[in-house]
């Protein structure tokens, strides 16, 4: 098992006037080649901050991040950029309002010189269709898309890079379940087909259950539990993890039973 990416005692502190915010606090974890590592945790627990640091958007206050064993420099090379991709949490602002969807999607192809020039326009269409949008949306502007549609564009753009590691910050939270299923499927297939590695940030534990290999649970900037998915859902160690699972809204009776069982355990231990 080789670590594709490893965080070593990474912290991030924001200063904001009088306040100091310790967004990420001494986090160490490895992302293994080919896995899907889910990051779950309460809102504001530093998940996006971790993602941003992995992408080099801002440097960690302390600690190092290594990719394939080498520490990532503050200024990323083009190769690093291609190797690590991000789907941002806020889909509206991540698309340039003045550029067409097609132009935004074509950018990674042009930047990394992917595929023959002439075929790129067609490739954009394929990318859109992969995330369940009609190819002619390439001519639209972000403003005329619904929230979910924008999110899918953002996913398509990250996938276009054909990178090794994709950081997905709540990629499906704005999607309806049908599209979500399709996107998840696509993500899964791509991972298998291309050997991609995902860092998958989400609140949706049902999704986690079905896509992730391992799960990292964050609480207030700290990593409180990191275990294989099976363990998390059958025998969660940390109380916060159990609380999380216990709060999942579910649709079937089976699920309710599972949830109740975990909650019982929790009550027993408490």
């Amino acid at each position, binding site marked *: 098992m080789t670590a594709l990416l490893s965080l070593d005692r990474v912290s991030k502190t*924001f200063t*904001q*006037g009088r*306040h100091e*915010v310790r967004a990420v606090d001494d986090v160490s974890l490895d992302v293994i080649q080919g896995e899907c590592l889910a990051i*779950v*945790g*309460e*809102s*504001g*627990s530093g998940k*996006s901050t971790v993602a941003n640091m992995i992408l080099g958007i801002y440097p960690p206050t302390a600690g190092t991040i290594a990719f394939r064993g080498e520490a990532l420099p503050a200024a990323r090379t083009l190769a690093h950029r291609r190797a690590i991709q991000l789907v941002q*949490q*806020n*889909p*509206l*602002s991540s698309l340039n309002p003045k550029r067409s969807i097609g132009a935004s999607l074509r950018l990674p192809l042009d930047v990394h010189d992917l595929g023959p020039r002439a075929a790129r326009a067609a490739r954009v269409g394929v990318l859109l269709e992969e995330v369940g949008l009609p190819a002619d949306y390439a001519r639209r502007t972000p403003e*005329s*898309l*619904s*929230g*979910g*549609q924008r*999110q*899918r564009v953002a996913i398509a753009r990250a996938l276009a890079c054909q990178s090794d590691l994709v950081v997905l910050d*709540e990629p499906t*939270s*704005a*999607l*309806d*379940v*049908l*599209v*979500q*299923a*399709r996107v*998840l*499927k696509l993500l*899964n297939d791509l991972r298998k087909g291309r050997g991609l590695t995902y860092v998958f940030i989400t*609140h*949706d534990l*049902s*999704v986690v*259950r*079905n*896509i992730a290999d391992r799960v990292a649970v964050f609480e*207030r900037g700290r990593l409180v539990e990191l275990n294989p998915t099976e363990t998390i*859902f059958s025998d969660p160690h940390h109380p916060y993890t159990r609380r*999380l*699972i216990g*709060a*999942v*809204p*579910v*649709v*079937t009776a*089976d*699920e309710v039973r*599972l*949830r109740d069982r975990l909650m019982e355990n929790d009550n027993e231990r408490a």
Partner: protein
Amino acid sequence: MTAPTLAIRDLTLGFRGWAGQVDVLHGISLHIMKGERVALVGESGSGKSVTARIVLGLLQQLKTARIGGLVAFEGQDLSTLSARQRHALRGTRMSMIFQDPTSSLNPVYRIGSQFHEVLKRAEPGISAADARRKAQAALADVAIPDPARALDSYSFQLSGGMNQRVMIAMALANEPSLLIADEPGTALDVTVQAQTLSLMRALVEKHHTSVLFISHNLGVVREFADRVYVIYKGRIVEHGRSADLFADPRHPYTRALLSAVPRITGGGIPEIDDVSESYFAPMVVHEGCGEPGEVG
């Protein structure tokens, strides 16, 4: 019988552009009784948010929008109200939680001052100190850990979920009679989500607030809503009480939706068929759920 808080009848919507008109809503009808929680679920882009924006009267001012049909709030046809009257309803009698919390907060004002502005709608003379106190309490209710800091922050300094909770707190602050919640939980972790949902539920019960709950998280819908409308490409395809609908989905599209939900019991990502013609099958209405004043 009192009039429903919100009644929508045969609502149509199209956008006019240089390439002609694009129809988005094809005549949808729905209603929400006082104190009722009604969910609107459906695929992304099916017209949920635009419906909400029409109810608030926001789309009416868009020149390219062509709107038809009836929207009545507490028995009053909105189109017969003057702009001023409609305006007076917003933020006091009805309020909305927006889908995209981070861009829906003004980036150049601190959360605190935006909150103050919201509170002034209900209580125009409220002092800054009072507003701050109220806002802190409201933020604490939605489980924001350090409300004082949040109030002193700008939206880009808070996490997505925090922004969303700010939005929720704002929407609830003035105790509206109609609350439109456009995907209020998407950016929240499940514990907080559960907490905000129960807060909303408590509020709804206390003030008999009606809620239009827009979501594609069927789990949340099942736990929160009394009734559910399923919308597909600008048409309502199924309508029933939550329990009934989840237990017995009848429309092909609803069935597809339900089967696509990933389960925490595992089982992998559900297989789904491609878009099927049957999704356009006629609307299914569960027993006792007809639109008021309609036969059926």
